């Protein structure tokens, strides 16, 4: 639906609003100072953020087969079970039953031998150098579930369903309630209150997604908008050329042509206030989006000025480009003005019901390259920018669920694995207590203590709830302890994630003093 046929603007109102009431943000190439354009905020003075933290969520869509990510190998008591049960989809792991060893050895976990999938060279190096850790057997839970109480416990709604499990992960679980907000969005709202505002100089949203609308960044009632950034260019108003080059001069003035006049008129129209709530709401979205284009443009220019070769570091893959954008925005954080920032990126394709032996290595290679590049970029940024520290950023991974322990066929070429439950997750960054496997390694056995009692494919009942995992990350970001239960209302149903004693849930994921 055109806004005004005379302007010939090909942007649908529904689609524009449907981008979660976002700002569409321009990327590099925009004029740095946009004072002359009616809707663009004047490029405000940069602030110097001395206390900065960023959380980066890497979501693997489809349910990554984490049984082939973290692999018991060699002398591990479960190594033979892995080989025998995983059958045609097993990675040779050096067990007595295996034919060779293709895994990448990790530093021993409590004496047990584990390795990564052979595609994860960079991440294995990060693990062994203390920059990355794993969390075992985590998943959505309404309450503590065991094999004994499985038939009577309240299970997550629509367990094994993609969209429901994704939504529950992003909500910080609470699977017994309808989705209302993501836990990232709730943190942003929490920080926006007068009492807890840790972004007093913020010029842009605390919530930035490079992967389209994200439930993780959905705030209660839309109170804090999430901003979408494209990884390959601005989602600009169409009809004015790339980066408005047909309408704006190099001196940042409207061109004296039809495009320039139309853009000027369009922005004048957007400045009008409306009594009708929907009309005003639409215009507010546009005004906000256009106002942020300049801010983001400056941020990216600042990133370039740091001297970090982002283009050279990051691979040209979907996830690589998304994480590159995140890294650049972190480098240009002073323009965004937020002391606390939450980013969201994702990688799809992990629903490997078929062809897992062909597809998973490719996916994990892309993941490995992108994560390794991001880690390297953070190190280089810390070296080039005296106001930035490698300890300022944590990346954490999530996914719909794990996949079945056993394959669904006997063909090497076409077999795959199906939906399961408890999964492994990784987190990385300076503050992470790296080189460890936290949580509880499940008994990897069909019909074993951690297997769902119904079924015969090996689906692990989580021993760590998503709430517990997320609460640790939220606390690091700066959520006051008194507000943790507000962000994660079901947290009290599980053991205290901050109890790092020997009797605790083994979630000492982060060095809070780093």
């Amino acid at each position, binding site marked *: 639906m055109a806004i005004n046929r005379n302007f010939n603007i090909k942007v649908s109102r529904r689609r524009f609003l449907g981008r979660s009431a976002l700002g569409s943000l321009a990327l590099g190439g925009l004029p740095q100072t946009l004072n002359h354009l009616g809707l663009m905020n004047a490029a405000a003075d940069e602030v110097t953020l001395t206390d900065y933290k960023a959380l980066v969520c890497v979501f693997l869509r489809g349910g990554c087969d984490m049984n082939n990510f973290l692999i018991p190998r060699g002398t591990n008591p479960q190594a033979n079970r892995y080989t025998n049960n995983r059958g045609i989809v097993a990675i040779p792991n050096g067990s007595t039953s295996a034919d060779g060893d293709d895994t990448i050895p990790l530093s021993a976990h409590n004496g047990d031998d584990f390795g990564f999938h052979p595609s994860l060279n960079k991440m294995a190096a990060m693990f062994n150098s203390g920059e990355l850790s794993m969390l075992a057997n985590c998943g959505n839970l309404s309450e503590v579930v065991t094999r004994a109480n499985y038939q009577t416990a309240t299970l997550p709604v*629509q367990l094994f*369903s*993609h*969209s429901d499990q994704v939504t529950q992960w992003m909500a910080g679980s609470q699977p017994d309630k309808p989705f209302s907000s993501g836990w990232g969005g709730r943190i942003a709202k929490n920080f926006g209150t007068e009492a807890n505002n840790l972004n007093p100089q913020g010029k842009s949203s605390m919530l930035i997604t490079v992967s*389209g609308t994200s439930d993780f960044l959905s705030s209660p009632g839309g109170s804090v908008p999430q901003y979408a950034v494209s990884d390959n260019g601005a989602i600009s108003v169409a009809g004015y050329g790339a980066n408005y080059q047909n309408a704006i001069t190099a001196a940042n003035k409207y061109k004296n042509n039809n495009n320039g006049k139309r853009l000027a008129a369009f922005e004048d129209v957007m400045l009008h206030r409306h009594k009708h709530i929907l009309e005003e709401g639409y215009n507010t979205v546009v005004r906000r989006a256009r106002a942020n284009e300049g801010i983001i443009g400056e941020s990216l220019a600042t990133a370039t000025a740091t001297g970090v070769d982002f283009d050279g570091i990051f691979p040209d893959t979907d996830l690589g480009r998304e994480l590159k954008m995140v890294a650049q925005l972190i480098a240009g954080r002073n323009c965004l003005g937020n002391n606390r920032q939450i980013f969201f990126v994702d990688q799809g394709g992990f629903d490997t019901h078929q062809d897992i032996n062909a597809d998973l290595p490719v996916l994990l290679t892309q993941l490995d390259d992108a994560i390794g590049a991001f880690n390297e970029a953070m190190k280089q940024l810390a070296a080039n920018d005296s106001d930035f520290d490698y300890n300022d950023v944590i990346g954490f991974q999530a996914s719909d669920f794990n996949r079945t322990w056993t394959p669904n066929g006997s063909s090497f070429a*076409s077999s*795959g694995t199906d939906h*399961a439950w408890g999964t492994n997750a990784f987190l990385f960054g300076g503050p992470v207590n790296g080189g460890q496997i936290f949580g509880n390694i499940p008994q990897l056995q069909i019909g074993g203590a951690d297997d769902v009692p119904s079924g015969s494919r090996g689906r692990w009942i989580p021993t760590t709830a998503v709430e517990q995992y997320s609460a640790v990350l939220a606390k690091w970001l700066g959520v006051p302890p008194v507000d943790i239960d507000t962000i994660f209302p079901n947290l009290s149903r599980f053991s205290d994630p901050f109890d790092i004693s020997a009797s605790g849930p083994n979630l000492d994921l982060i060095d809070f003093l780093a």
Partner: protein
Amino acid sequence: MPQQPTWVPILKKVTAGVIVLVMVYGLYSIIRPASRQDLPQGVPVPRKAAAKTAALPEKNIAPPLQPGQTRPGTRPGTLIVQPFQPGPPKEISSKYRVPSHRDDARITRTDDGRLIFEQSINLARQLHDKDIPAEEDIQILDAILGYYRMMNKSNPVAGENFEVINSLMGKNKQSIVVFPTNHPDLDENGNLLDRWGTPYFFHALSATLLDIQSAGPDRQRGSADDLKLGYELPEPD
């Protein structure tokens, strides 16, 4: 002097009496206790009259309804519904009451409490009929799942074939049976096999989207001859 007729004095007396009565009655009308109808609005009834109109004994008066609650109305066949909005309860006719599945003529209740959905059972018996094309097997299953969703509001929560079929055979909250327990194409583990003897794959996309896939004649999942409905989740915006 002519004499007065004899009735004149009598008439005078009667007339005087009537006048007196009228005067007395008028005086009484003024000073008598007022009835409820004569009083203007808001004026309290004098104590004597009020005693006659004292409130009925407070027995059998139901507590006020909470928003959303119902109770039978005073007239047979009616229901009083307290709406969620502020305001007095409304009476609605029972003909507008939405029937439950227990009123549904298509459902048979068994002695053990199961609810058999006959239409769906009959549809399931057409599965794998040699007179219908293989593609229709998937569509029949989709329709059966549709019956299930109609009664249970969402798909079976299941990760494997036999778990889905168990749910369709009555292992669900409503104990609705939409698939026959003695179907000839169930294997010993309770999996529903396609017409080539391979278990169907049920791909849970969401609470209301369940894709159904058959491995096809070559009995290999993921090959070109697979049959599937083709439901997919939309990509995020």
